[in-house]
Every structure is written in structure tokens, then in C-alpha cells.
């Protein structure tokens, strides 16, 4: 049996259960630190919930765009094409009892909304060609989209068709005239003008057969059996402005910079030591984004961005590399101009919402004693860097060129500024990072439109 050393015994007997009352301010500090930690924990949870919600919304929206039918397949507001069947049947019936030529006509004119209004009382546009009277559904010369557009216009009684729908249908507008309509196909020359007029949209789609043209003879609209519109239809201004959807993937190089500023004069030596010991390196970033581009060229872009960079540290004869990684959600607005031949040029600006900022490595301890670890994943490491960085400002210009009808290559130089320090407020140094870079990627046209309002 080991016998305790007399000195050990004396110290243990006298000190093991000896207690001193801690000063009261210590409990206050413990309480304050606990409350701060709890607040931080709550903010962290709230941040996670919001981030998860935003991500789910983003993914849900992306999925919807991906799986939802095309706008030319989904036409909730338009009556079915059976409407015209009814009309045609009624017309056939009228033909049997009415002399030929007394039947009313549908007329479509090539005009904008304003022009349509001006022409409304006495539109006398001449049709370029006419289809013979008969069952228009059996007439293969009239594209299906054209029929639907006409059907929609008849049902809603609107004077002007949306530009996209008109382009798809091969007509530009429709005009009502006391129950008499004439449907006129846009001739090839007019169509070119229409294409030019809608150049603000990135990629116009006019894929109809040329040379077809129709005159549809039918009964007056009041004779048609109208289908009820959805109850919310009157609440929506009947204005179709489709936003084209694109998926974008980028990768690129980042040229990083930083500034260190001592938070108090006594830390100036420390700041200088860190400044001399650390050398920030270039990094890389990758982006996955969805873009919605309106017919006017306005763009809304969002997605997810991952970036990484390194710092090389030379301290006390040793050299090592620190690594930093961030995940952000970009929320950008832009304007896109495609009047440069086949190229498009866009300018974008917005914010990046930081989701995570991870660090791995060591730096000089504030007491200048030597390196100390600050890795975010290591427990009890030095708490210098924040784990979420808030908002960053982002600006870019992008030039794209077509690779195929649905694919473009995009070059996007950008700048990024983080307005707040990436270190905690109680750390000796205020550190701000910025970077500029150039990213190259592809833009895939997703064959979907989104409508914020639709007749």
C-alpha cells in the first residue's frame, strides 16, 4: 500500500475542501455570457429555419418550373378549343339557312394594344390569305396554337393578345367588332417586324408554319356558349407578360483581398504581426442559379454559391495553409440587352445572403505567444471568425453567346464586397474581405414561362 508523502498529505488536508466565496460580479458575468450564448443559439436556430425555408422554396420553385407543363400546354384561363367547334357547328347551321356571305367574320389585325384601340371602331385590315370556310379543326393549315389564341380572345373578349402567345400563334393581335371577327395571319414580312419588335426578350420563339392564313367564319360571339372564368380572373389585370426561365451553372476564379484593422491601439502590434505573417491566396467559386428574364429584359436571379480560398501563413519558422469556405444565396436583379447580334449583355446587382462560413487553420494568438487554432469545427478553438457573415454586395456584367438554340455560354466578371467584419466584435482585429473574379458557365433555357398575371 502506498503511503502518502507527508507534504502531499498536508496540502490535501488543508486545501482539498478549502473554499473561497467567488466575487458577485463573477456570477453576473456568467449570467451575461449564458444569456448571450442562448441568444446566439436562438438566432442560429432561427437562421437555420429561415435558410431551410428559403432553400425549400427555391427548390420547389425550380422543380415546378422543371416539371410543370409549358405555357402552350397549360392554358387555365382560356376556354377549350371546343369553343370553336361549337362556333363552327353553329355557323354550319346558319349557313344552311342564311345566304353565303352573310355570316360574320373574325378578324385579327397586326397591331399593338394602342393600335388596336385606335382601329377598334373601323378596323379594315386586309387579310393576307383566307382559308375556305369549313371545319377549322380539320384544317391542318391552321396551327393548333393559333386556334387556341383565337379561342382565348373570343372567350375573354379582349382586344389584344399577349405578344408571346401571338408569336406562338403566328398572329399579333385580335380585334373585336360587334360580333364580327376576321382572323388574319401575320405575313412573313410582318412577322419579321414582330420578331424585331420583341427583341428585348432574349430569345423569341416563332416556330409556326409560314404561308398559312385563315379566315374563320362563324356566328357572332353572343351566340357562343361561354365557359365560366375562374372567380379570381376579374381580380387579375388581363396582361400576359411571360418571364422566361433559365438554369445557369458557373465556375470561376476569385481574386481575394482583405483589410485588417486593430480594434484598439494596443492591438496594433498584433495586427501588424498578422499582416506580415499571412498572405491571402486566390480562390475559386461555383454557382448554380435560376434566372427569370422578362420580355422587357429585366432579370431576377437566385440560386446557391460556394466559394473557397486559402491563406498561407509563415510564422516562427513554420509555414502552413489556412482554408476558408462560404456558402451564399445570391439574390440579384439585372437587365439584359440582346441587341448585339447573337450576343446578350447583362448587368446584375444584388446581395448575397451568407448561409455558412467555415474556417480551418491557425493564426498568431493575440498575446503573440504563438499559433492558435481557430477552426470552426474544432471545439474550444479560438473564437475569432464568425460562422455567418450576413449580407454581401454583388455586382456583375455578363456576356453570353449561343451554343445551341437552348444553350448559351456566359462569361461573368463580378465584384463582391462584404460590408461587415468577418471576425467577432470582441476579437482584437476587424477583418474585412472582398473579392473580384470572373466566372464562366452555361445558361440552359428551360422551356417554361412564368406569368405574374394572365387573362
Amino acid at each position, binding site marked *: 500500500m502506498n503511503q502518502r*508523502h*507527508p507534504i502531499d498529505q*498536508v*496540502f490535501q488536508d*488543508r*486545501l482539498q475542501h478549502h473554499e473561497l466565496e*467567488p466575487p458577485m460580479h463573477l456570477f453576473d458575468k456568467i449570467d451575461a455570457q449564458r444569456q448571450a450564448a442562448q441568444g446566439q443559439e436562438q438566432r442560429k436556430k432561427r437562421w437555420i429555419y429561415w435558410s431551410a425555408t428559403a432553400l425549400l422554396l427555391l427548390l420547389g420553385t425550380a422543380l415546378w418550373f422543371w416539371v410543370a407543363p409549358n405555357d402552350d400546354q397549360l392554358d387555365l384561363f382560356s376556354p377549350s378549343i371546343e369553343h370553336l367547334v361549337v362556333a363552327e357547328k353553329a355557323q354550319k347551321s346558319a349557313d344552311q339557312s342564311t345566304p353565303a356571305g352573310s355570316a360574320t367574320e373574325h378578324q385579327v389585325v397586326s397591331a399593338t394594344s394602342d393600335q388596336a384601340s385606335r382601329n377598334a371602331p373601323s378596323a379594315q385590315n386586309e387579310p393576307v390569305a383566307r382559308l375556305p370556310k369549313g371545319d377549322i379543326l380539320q384544317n391542318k393549315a391552321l396551327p393548333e396554337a393559333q386556334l387556341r389564341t383565337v379561342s382565348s380572345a373570343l372567350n375573354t373578349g379582349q382586344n389584344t393578345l399577349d405578344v408571346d402567345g401571338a408569336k406562338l400563334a403566328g398572329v399579333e393581335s385580335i380585334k373585336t367588332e360587334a360580333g364580327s371577327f376576321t382572323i388574319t395571319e401575320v405575313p412573313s414580312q410582318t412577322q419579321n417586324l414582330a420578331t424585331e419588335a420583341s427583341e428585348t426578350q432574349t430569345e423569341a420563339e416563332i416556330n409556326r408554319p409560314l404561308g398559312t392564313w385563315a379566315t374563320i367564319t362563324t356566328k357572332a360571339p353572343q351566340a357562343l356558349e361561354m365557359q365560366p372564368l375562374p372567380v379570381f380572373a376579374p381580380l387579375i389585370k388581363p396582361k400576359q407578360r411571360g418571364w422566361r426561365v433559365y438554369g445557369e451553372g458557373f465556375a470561376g476564379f476569385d481574386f481575394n483581398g482583405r483589410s485588417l484593422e486593430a480594434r484598439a491601439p494596443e492591438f496594433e502590434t498584433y495586427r501588424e504581426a498578422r499582416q506580415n505573417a499571412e498572405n491571402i491566396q486566390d480562390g475559386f467559386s461555383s454557382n448554380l442559379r435560376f434566372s427569370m428574364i422578362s420580355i422587357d429584359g429585366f432579370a431576377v436571379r437566385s440560386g446557391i454559391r460556394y466559394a473557397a480560398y486559402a491563406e498561407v501563413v509563415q510564422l516562427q519558422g513554420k509555414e502552413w495553409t489556412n482554408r476558408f469556405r462560404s456558402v451564399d444565396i445570391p439574390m440579384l436583379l439585372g437587365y439584359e440587352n440582346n441587341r448585339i447580334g447573337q450576343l446578350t449583355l447583362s448587368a446584375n446587382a444584388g446581395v448575397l445572403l451568407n448561409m455558412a462560413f467555415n474556417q480551418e487553420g491557425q493564426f498568431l494568438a493575440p498575446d503573440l505567444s504563438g499559433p492558435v487554432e481557430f477552426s470552426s469545427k474544432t471545439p474550444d478553438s479560438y473564437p475569432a471568425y464568425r460562422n455567418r457573415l450576413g449580407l454581401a454586395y454583388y455586382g456583375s456584367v455578363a456576356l453570353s453567346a449561343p451554343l445551341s438554340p437552348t444553350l448559351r455560354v456566359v462569361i461573368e466578371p463580378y465584384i463582391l464586397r462584404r460590408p461587415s467584419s468577418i471576425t467577432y466584435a470582441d476579437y482584437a482585429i476587424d477583418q474585412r474581405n472582398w473579392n473580384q473574379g470572373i466566372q464562366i458557365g452555361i445558361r440552359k433555357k428551360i422551356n417554361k414561362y412564368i406569368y405574374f398575371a394572365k387573362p
Partner: protein
Amino acid sequence: MLVVCMRYARHQMEAEDLLQDAFIKVFDHLAQFQNKGSLEGWIRRIVVNTALKNIDRKSFTHEQYGMEIREDFSSTDPGVYAQLGEAELLKLIAQLPEGYKVVFNLYAIEGYNHAEIAELLGVQESTSRSQLVKARKMLQSMVEHLQSIAV
């Protein structure tokens, strides 16, 4: 627990900081206490571990092994220590070099053995033994010095 921290710290402020850090951990992990031992013992382990994390590992390097064979405390009467108050004993410990102080605290007062100390500190057992012997010898000389002043 403040006394525990004072035995490992260099000064009162550091001891208070250690105690603060330790109690934050206690509150954060209170749910993990399984009532298998005493709450005081559990808290004391957390306090000691917090103090040990604050220690510069270099305190345990450059040791001269084999000094444990030169133990000789016969010249000091243990009764002399009994005349010293707790505050004086704490001051004596505080004057020890960091490595000596830690090993002496762990071995003599907390009751750890050398194998456990070696594992806690990440050093060799022989280093722990060596530090303990040097600590005792230094304490003995300091007590003798106090004794000579008193006489």
C-alpha cells in the same frame, strides 16, 4: 471551486476567468450529468479540465529524468506545514513553475495517479513523477525559507 482555479492559475484574475469558463460549461452540459457520482465531483472535474486546457504544454518539456531518486525531505518537520494557513499554502503553490504546480495539484490534492496525469497532460509518466519530485523539493525549500525568516 474558486480555490481549485487559484491553484492552477497564475493570478486571481486568471482564476476568475477559469471559473467563469468552467461554469459556462457546467450549465451547458448539466443535462449530461447522470447522477452516478456527486455533483461536486463532476463540477470539480470540469473545473480542473478547464484549467488544464489553459496550460502551456511547453511547461512539461525539457525535463531531467531521474530526479525522483533524489527525494530527501527528512530535514523538514511536517509539523511546520501545519502552522501555515490555507492562504500561505496557496501562495506557495502559486510560486511553483507551471509544470510543477499542475502535477503537484493533480497528484497531491486531486488524487490522480501518474498514469492518469500522463494521459490528462499528454506527457510521459516519468515526466509526471519528475515534476512532482521537483515540486515537493521546491515547496520544502520555500517552507524552510519561511521558517528561517520566522526564527
